[in-house]
């Protein structure tokens, strides 16, 4: 990663009395696959539309290589967008669609055609130049949209949930391809999605958003393994959230008292001692163990067979539900429903967050 290509500086967006973005700040680096991840209504698409220029910002600045582009109309911003439903021009051929942006920039027909063909080659669609978008499958349309947005070599490519209209199998194949194209072209991608798996598999960095705020920015691994708060821990992957009394916090480590009385040391983003915290326990980092070594003791309530994994549902003495994920190979030693089970927290299973 070299310099910053886009610098979002305290951007505010209001629709009437509703505030969609609350002073959002983030930097996107050159050559980066950056994902805006969050539930619907979190402001991720609004932020993307602000970068593209379709929504004027209510406050703050959007800088592209240091220059504030917030006052510029969309057709003067060197960024291109892949729309959620592609918005391919139905009355033009595939080639004409891809040439459109280049011709608006003043390229000659010959040059524009050459570049458009290159872009279509990049997405493996060279055989469909003369077709109309309506004659292509959803996956092919998505590639045309990508080629059309990449052809003018934008400084940043914006992608608004481009995979959501594809079926599951295709979506998984396109993910890897998209990532590969991003590496090949070296253009910074800003990818909007509500699908955490998509975000984790493709991104260099992720900004997790909710209610118009950025909750955390970091690499996929960091977001998953060291969530900054309860929202991120809960939204990314599965987790068990258990309220616990906090005994002490120092140097990023917390000491808490587990239900049942055992003390546990675990990492935390909190710096000051709090009376009560929320312990996030990742289900796949919990294992079964004999009662004498157990960190937690639970009553098994149910099992869900998931193929590679088996999900064990259990209840703490206080009645709180817990989920544990066990590898299918270990299926033979699954506890009977209603029996008492000891749980061992492996390294990295627990993280203390503010309540």
């Amino acid at each position, binding site marked *: 990663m070299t310099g910053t290509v886009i610098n979002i500086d305290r951007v505010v967006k209001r629709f009437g009395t509703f505030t969609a973005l609350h002073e959002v700040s983030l930097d996107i680096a050159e050559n980066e696959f950056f994902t805006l991840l969050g539930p619907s209504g979190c402001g991720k698409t609004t932020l993307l539309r602000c970068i593209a220029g*379709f929504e004027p910002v209510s406050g703050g600045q959007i800088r592209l290589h240091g220059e504030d582009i917030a006052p510029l*109309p969309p*057709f003067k911003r060197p960024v*291109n967008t892949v729309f959620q439903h592609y918005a391919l021009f*139905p009355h033009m051929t595939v080639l004409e669609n891809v040439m459109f942006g280049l011709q*608006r920039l003043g390229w000659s027909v010959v040059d524009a055609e050459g570049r458009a063909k290159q872009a279509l080659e990049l997405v493996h669609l060279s055989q469909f130049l003369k077709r109309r978008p*309506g004659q292509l499958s959803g996956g092919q349309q998505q590639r045309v949209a990508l080629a059309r947005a990449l052809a003018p070599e934008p400084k940043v490519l914006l992608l608004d949930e481009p995979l959501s209209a594809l079926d599951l199998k295709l979506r998984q194949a396109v993910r890897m391809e998209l990532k590969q194209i991003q590496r090949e072209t070296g253009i910074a991608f800003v990818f909007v999605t509500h699908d955490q798996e998509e975000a984790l598999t493709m991104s260099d960095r992720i900004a997790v958003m909710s209610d118009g705020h950025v909750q955390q920015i970091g690499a996929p691994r960091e977001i998953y393994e060291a969530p900054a708060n309860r929202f991120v821990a809960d939204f990314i992957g599965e987790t068990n959230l258990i309220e616990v009394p906090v005994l002490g916090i120092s140097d990023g480590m917390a000491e808490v008292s587990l239900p049942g009385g055992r003390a546990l040391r675990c990492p935390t983003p909190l710096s000051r001692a709090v009376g009560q915290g929320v312990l996030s326990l990742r289900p796949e980092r919990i294992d079964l163990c004999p009662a004498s070594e157990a960190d937690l003791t639970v009553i098994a309530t149910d099992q869900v067979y998931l193929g590679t994994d088996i999900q064990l549902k259990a209840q703490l003495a206080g009645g709180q539900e817990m989920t544990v994920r066990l590898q299918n190979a270990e299926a033979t030693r699954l506890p009977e429903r209603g029996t008492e089970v000891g749980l061992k927290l492996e390294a990295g299973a627990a993280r203390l967050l503010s309540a």
Partner: protein
Amino acid sequence: MKQLDLRRFPGFFAITLLCVVVLYAPLLVVSVYSFNASTSITNWGGVSLEWYVDVFTGPESPKFQRAAMNSLIIAVLAGLCATLIATSAAVAMHRAGRFKGKTATFALINLPLMVPEVVTAVASLIFFTAIGFSGGVGTILLAHITFCIPFAYLPIAARMQSVPDSYEQAAMDLYATPWEAFRLILLPLMMPGIFSGFLLAFIISLDDFLITNFVKGAGVETLPTAIFGAVKQGIKPNIMAISTLMLGVSVVFVTLSWLIGRSGQAKT
């Protein structure tokens, strides 16, 4: 649950037949008798095209040709102007976002559909008299443009509603100015609706009688007023031939308008 089948209602067939007869029997009679060889309008004297020949070469033919020419010029110009105004109105209504008085504007555009035609006719006449315009092709044209606007507007607006604004956003994202986005993207996509709107306005103008009769000056005739004038002196078979020709033109244009509107819908 069984679907309600209208055809099982008692008397369905009789009512349908009655409606069809009332609506189409007069047209059928006129069309058939236009091929009558006899000079009588009630007695059948064998099949002949003589009245069609009479329309183009008979003693009354110069009068009808002048009237037909007036009708054609007025219908084309009124259709074009109404389409232009209706297209602009549709763009404003569907692309300018919300603005104050949008609902009122919509009502205003479509008002001529609701106002009784005779009221529009009287009002137009009073207006032209008040501002000192004397009746002629000009006043007919102005009146026709006015009442053709809603007919052109409806298919254009319907078409425009089916074009999502993401196309223009995509165009602007790809460095097209708002004007280029309109000219290169929105306009071509709206074209079936615009064409359909023009044809509808054209045909509405072509066969308007009431308003035309009020605002036309003495001596200026369109085809409908000329036919009415001729009928006052007694119905002759050549009137039936002219009417049948007009019916044919109307059917062709309305069908064309419908087909174009439909094909455009199916493409996107």
